[in-house]
């Protein structure tokens, strides 16, 4: 078995190996050349209109405003604070989601239990429900005056809504299944053979987890973490509802972009560009790391 056999979910999302013309496909080549070009054209046009052109315009707009405008926009105290809030929330939410995701993925891949299918469906709800709804739902539960257990929490001095805990909660919620969904296929593919072998060689469960499980899923985990991170940094709707969007307190970078754009103030494109660059960096970083793994 090849070392890359266990990574279908990741492979499909990353630049794969150069497409090899399968011998069987050869005869069709001449006939469908026009069709191939048409397909390619449609694909490029589609991606272009949806992704490339809008992003390129953000770049262009930022460059057109000049380096000073860029620097001013991202170094303004409120902007720095917004970036910090975003970073804090993203890191905490990703850390929580990684630990939770690992646990749930192991549970789903290795155990059969009553309600497993229902659990599986529940996991996907966060990505299919609108983030605004998520935000409102969290307010219903944790709201300081009318929430289910918000009042008791606030009596105990814990403020969830309009504060960082609520924003972390919302961010966790919207990126809940991203790590799990990357890990489960890999864990299922690899099965338990290596774990059992490690056990027979004297490894306890922690040693098996660190020496066998983690290395086996490391790329799927890294990919899931990057996806979660990108999602966490980009989250707007749910965070907007639960944060209160107080400048200099609970305003994240995305909320700031939204506010500035709404009020027609400068700085929105500059901050947006930073967010886009970070996301691109994440994706490029991991796709550069991957081929190394394949070669070894």
């Amino acid at each position, binding site marked *: 078995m090849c070392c890359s056999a266990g990574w279908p979910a990741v492979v499909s999302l990353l630049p794969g190996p150069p497409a090899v013309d399968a011998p069987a496909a050869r005869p069709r080549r001449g006939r469908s050349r026009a069709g191939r070009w048409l397909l390619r054209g449609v694909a490029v046009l589609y991606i272009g209109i949806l992704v490339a052109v809008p992003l390129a315009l953000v770049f262009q707009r930022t460059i057109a405003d000049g380096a000073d405008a860029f620097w001013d926009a991202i170094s303004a105290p409120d902007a720095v604070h917004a970036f910090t809030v975003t970073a804090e929330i993203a890191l905490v939410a990703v850390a929580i989601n990684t630990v939770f995701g690992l646990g749930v993925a192991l549970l789903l891949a290795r155990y059969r239990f009553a309600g497993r299918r229902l659990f599986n469906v529940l996991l996907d709800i966060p990505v299919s429900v609108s983030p605004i709804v998520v935000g409102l739902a969290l307010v219903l539960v944790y709201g300081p005056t009318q929430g289910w257990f918000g009042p008791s929490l606030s009596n105990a001095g814990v403020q969830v809504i309009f504060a960082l805990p609520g924003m972390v909660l919302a961010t966790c919620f919207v990126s809940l299944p991203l790590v799990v969904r990357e890990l489960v296929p890999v864990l299922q593919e690899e099965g338990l053979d*290596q774990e059992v*072998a490690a056990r027979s060689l004297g490894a306890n469960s922690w040693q098996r987890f660190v020496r066998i499980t983690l290395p086996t899923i490391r790329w799927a985990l890294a990919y899931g973490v990057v996806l979660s991170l990108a999602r966490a940094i980009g989250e707007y709707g749910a965070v907007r509802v639960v944060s209160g969007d107080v400048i200099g307190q609970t305003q994240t970078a995305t909320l700031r972009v939204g506010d500035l754009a709404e009020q027609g103030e400068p700085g929105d494109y500059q901050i947006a560009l930073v967010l886009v660059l970070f996301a691109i960096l994440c994706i490029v970083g991991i796709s550069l790391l991957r081929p190394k793994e394949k070669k070894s």
Partner: protein
Amino acid sequence: MGIEVRAVTKRFGEFTALSDVDLSVPSGELTALLGPSGGGKSTLLRIIGGLEDPDSGSVEIDGVDATRVPAQRRNVGFVFQHYAAFKHLTVFRNVAFGLEIRRRPKDEIRRTVGELLELVHLEQFADRLPSQLSGGQRQRMALARALATQPRVLLLDEPFGALDAQVRKELRDWLRRLHDEMHVTTLFVTHDREEALEVSDRLVVINSGRIEQVGSPTELYDKPSNDFVMSFLGPVTRLDGRLVRPHDIDIFTEPADGAVRGTVLRLQRIGFEVRAELEAGASRPWVQLTRGQAESLRIAAGTTVWLRAAAGASTLDAPAQEEPVPVPA
């Protein structure tokens, strides 16, 4: 000493994998657990290794009760059918795994692993990943890995099952020689009777969750205690209400004492051997002859002959229902 299995029973839901099994494996011997798929032999091996818990009964290894000892503390070497190689580790690190877990000093690990890799002829592959090895090489690596911690017992679960015939044959001979050098108590599961007869010191035939017979390969082949063991260990045919090995039947061209009359239906030549299919009363035995025997008897389809189990041949009463025992292809 060795392994003592006492009254072990194991059920999976409704299915009884092992039913009140007793087995004692002498120290230092190479013992084969032979039986058809689903007969319980792998379950027994996994219970001895601690990978399954018995519902009742006990397992003793080297005089110590191991029934409740978890697998990671039994110090048992396990080799799996599908290698279970650690894919992200080099051959060296695979073999070193058990020693690293036991926190042995680095230079001791290097020395031990080096010796083991030499033993399994993989010294030049130390830095490769398992994916760069052939199936046979992977299984040798798995064996070195299992031996590294100097286990009290080596357990092999269909170790050659995933390999092609040629490699299987080579590894089988090699395992036998290796065992002659190392003398670690070894128990291996197989459904291949040739493998079991060729490699093992002792054979344990398991079927439907019970041990049918235990003994040396010769004992079991020559003195099977029942028709299952007899037919599982070699070809069997039916002559005059008895089960007998087809090479244990004498053919006469004239009446002889205690011989039954029959007619040759067909002669089939397979390399050096000749198979004669006959009709004798209610049964239709077949006889395995050498080419020379067939020629000196001058038999052909239609010839009338007399058949008798050879002197000293092991025979068993045939089961009541007259089920034709097929001629192997």
